[in-house]
C-alpha cells in the first residue's frame, strides 16, 4: 500500500493445529471454555451444535473441520471464541486462545496462493511479526451461509 499511515489492528490470536490465526477484537464477543454442546441434526458437519451462552442459543462451529484441518479431541485448552458478524453470533471452537495483540497494518500482506492445508479463500491476509506468522481470518467467508445451504441440500437428500 502506498499509504504510509500506520494503523494498528487489535486482534485475538488463537491456535489451530500448529498454525496461529487472528481475528479482529471488534468481531469477538468473548472467549468461553468448552461447555456441553447440543447437536443439531441435519446441518453441515462442521456445525457442532448449539450452546446456551448466557441465555442465548448460540451455534458452534468447529473451526478445524471448517478449514479442512483434521479433527482432534477437545482438551483443557480448547476454547470457544464467540464472534459477531452482522446479525450473526457464532462460536468457533479453536485449540487454544493465545494472545491479544496489535498488528501494524504495514506487516499485513495479502494471502499467498497456497498456505498449508488451509483453503486460501478464508484468508484476509498474513501478518509476520518477529518469528510468528499470523493468518488473518476472513470471518465473512468462514460463516458464509451459501455453503451451508448447499451442504444441507446435499445431506438432506
Amino acid at each position: 500500500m502506498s499509504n504510509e499511515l500506520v494503523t494498528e489492528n487489535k486482534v485475538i490470536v488463537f491456535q489451530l493445529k500448529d498454525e496461529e490465526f487472528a481475528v479482529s477484537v471488534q468481531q469477538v464477543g468473548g472467549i468461553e471454555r468448552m461447555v456441553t454442546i447440543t447437536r443439531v441434526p441435519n446441518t453441515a458437519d462442521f456445525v457442532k451444535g448449539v450452546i446456551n451462552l448466557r441465555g442465548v442459543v448460540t451455534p458452534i462451529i468447529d473451526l478445524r473441520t471448517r478449514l479442512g484441518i483434521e479433527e482432534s479431541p477437545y482438551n483443557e485448552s480448547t476454547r470457544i471464541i464467540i464472534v459477531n458478524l452482522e446479525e450473526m453470533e457464532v462460536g468457533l471452537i479453536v485449540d487454544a486462545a493465545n494472545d491479544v495483540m496489535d498488528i501494524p497494518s504495514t506487516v499485513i500482506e495479502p494471502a499467498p496462493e497456497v498456505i498449508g492445508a488451509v483453503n486460501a479463500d478464508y484468508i484476509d491476509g498474513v501478518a509476520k511479526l518477529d518469528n510468528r506468522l499470523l493468518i488473518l481470518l476472513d470471518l465473512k467467508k468462514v460463516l458464509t451461509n451459501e455453503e451451508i445451504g448447499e451442504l444441507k441440500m446435499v445431506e438432506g437428500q
Partner: protein
Amino acid sequence: MDTSQYLDVFIDESNEHIEVLYQKLLELEKNPGEKAIIEEIFRAAHTLKGMSATMGFSDLATLTHTLENVFDAIRYDKVQVQSSMIDLLVDTVDSLNAMVEDIASGGKGSLNITEIAKQLEAIEKGTMPVQSDGLTNDNVQKETISNVFTQLDEFELSILNESHERGFHNYEVTVQLREDCLLKGARVFMVFEVLEQLGEVIKSVPSVNDLEEENFESTFSIILVSKNEETEIEEKIKKVSEIDSVVVNAFSVNQYRESMAQQEVASGILEIVETNTEENKSKSNTVDHDSIKGAHQKTIRVNIEKLDILMNLFEELIIDRGRLEQISSDLRNNDLQETVERMARVSSDLQNIILTMRMVPIDHVFSRFPRMVRKLARDLHKNIDLEIIGADTELDRTVIDEIGDPIVHLLRNAVDHGIETKEERIKNGKPEKGTITLKAYHSGNHVFIEITDDGAGINKDKVLKKAIGNGLLTEREAETLPEQKIYELILESGFSTADKISDISGRGVGLDVVKNTIESLGGNISINSSLGNGSVFSIQLPLTLTIISVLLVELNQEKYAIPLSSIIETAIISKDQILSAHHKRVIDFRGKVVPLIDLKEIFNCPNTNEDESYTSIVIVKKGDKLAALVVDSFIGQQEVVLKSLGSYLSNTFAISGATILGDGQVALIVDSNAIIK
C-alpha cells in the same frame, strides 16, 4: 411546586382514567340505571380532577369538575341518564383526551371548554331548578355535626359502605394524648400500628402528614374499619402509654350522608380533595386500589430489552440452581438440601412472573375499539353493536404493539362495507342493529383474532369482476379460483369493491396494508363470507417469543421438545402392532392407518436399541394428517421459552427452534409440520 417529574406518571394515569371513562360511558348507555357504573365514572372523574388540579392544569380540572358534578347529580337521582346525554359526555371525554394529549406533547393542556362546560351544566341544572350554578358553589365550611369528619370524600365513603356490606364495623376513634406527652409523633405512630393490626385506617383528622409532623394539639380522630369490638379496640389503644383517653364510636355512613346532604349542596363534598394534602389523597388512592373491585391496575413502563436481559440473567441463575441441586444431593447435608429446595421453589415462582411479564392482555388494544366503532357508526347513521370476546387473551408485547392498526382497518371495513344501513337491513329482514364481534383466543401455538359481522357479506362476482377489471387476474384464472381465494383478492393492493369512496375506508389502501402487517408478524389472514349473512376475517398470529408447552422426549440421551399443540396423544405400542404397508411401517391408531416415523432416523441419531419389544410413540398432527413419531422415552411436559437457533442456523430441517432447559442445556424443538409431508 415542581411537578415535572410526575408528569409522565400523570399522563399515564390520566390516560388510564380516560380509558375507564370511555368504557364506562358506553356501558352506561346500555344500562342507564346501573349504580356501579355511575360510581366508577364518578371515581375516575374525581381522581382525574384531583390529579390535574395538583399538577396545575386548570382547564382539565375545571372540565372534570363539571363532569363530576353531572355524575354527582346522576348519582343522587337528580338527573336521569338519557342517551342524548351520553353523546355530550363522550364529547366531554374527547375534550379531556385532547387536553391530556396536548399535555403529553408538551402543551399546557388548555382548550376552550366554556361551550361544553355550559352544556354540561345545563344537564346538571336541567332537572335541578333549585340548584344554583354548580361551579361557583363554594359553601363555607360547615360546623361539625355529630363528628369531626366533615371531609369524607367519595373514595372513603364507598370503602366504608363496602366494608359495612362485608360485615366489618366502621368506627370513629378519638384519641386524646396526655398534655405532657413529649413524643407525640411517636405515640401517634404506635397508635396507628395498633390500629393497623386491628383493621384499616380509612382517614384521620388531622391528616397523617400533620400527625407525623406533630402539627396538632393533643387530640386526633381516625375512621377505622375493623372486625373487632369497640371495647377491644379501646383496650388495645390504651396499652400505648401517655394516652389520656380513647373514645370509640360506631360510624354510620348513612347518617353521615344525611347530615351532609342537609348542608352540602351538589358540589360541596367534592371541593375537598384539593384542600386535602397530597399524602392523604395518595393514601385514599391506594386504599381504593386494594379494596374496590374492578379498580384499575397500576402499571409502569419497562423497556422490553430490559425484560430480555432480565430473562437471560434469570436463566443463568437457573443453571447455577441446577448445579447447586446437584452438589447438595451429592453432599447429603439436610440443611443445604432444604435451602436449595426452597430456593428452587422461589426461583420457579420468579420464573413464572418473568415469563408472564412480557405478556399483555389484548384488552390493551381492544379497549379503544368500542368508542371508535360507536363514533363511526354514528357518522354513517348506522346502528352497530360491538361485542368483544376474549379480551383477556394474552399476547407478547411486541405483537400487541403491531396488531392494533390492522384490526382498526378491519373494523372500519366491517362498519363501512360490512354492515348495511338501517333501511337496507330492515328491507332484508334483519334486525335494525348490526353486530360486529371481535373475538380473540389461544389455540395451540397461535392466537386467533376473528372479526365477524352480520352484514351484507362479500359479493363474489363483484370481487371477480373488479379483479379482472384491475388486471389482477385473467378471466380464465377467475373460473378456477376457489371461493376462499376470491375473498382474499380484496386484500390485494389497489383493490376496493365499494362503489362509492367514503371517508372511512374504500380507497383501496388499507386491506393490503393489513395483510402485509400480519404477514410480517409471521401470521396470516383468511376471509370467509356468505352473501347476505356477513363475513369473518380471521387473523392467525404465532406466539413467537412466548412460552410454549412441550413434551420432552429422549433420543439416545439427546433431549428434544415436541410442542404439545401438535401432539394428539402418546402411547407405548408392542412390536406386533407395527404393520407394513408399501414397505412403510404404519400402525393402526384408533381405526386410522398412521405412518410410523423414526425420529432417530430423521435426526441421524445412532440407533442402538433396535430390538425392543415395546416402542414409545408420539402421535402428532398437521391439519388432519397424523403421524406417529418413535422416540426412546418420554421425559415429561414442561413450559419452555421458545428461542431461535440464530440466523446462522435458521433453516434447519425439522427443527423450529430451541429452548434452554432448567439445567442450562439446550434442547431442540421438533417441527412436526416439516416431518409430516
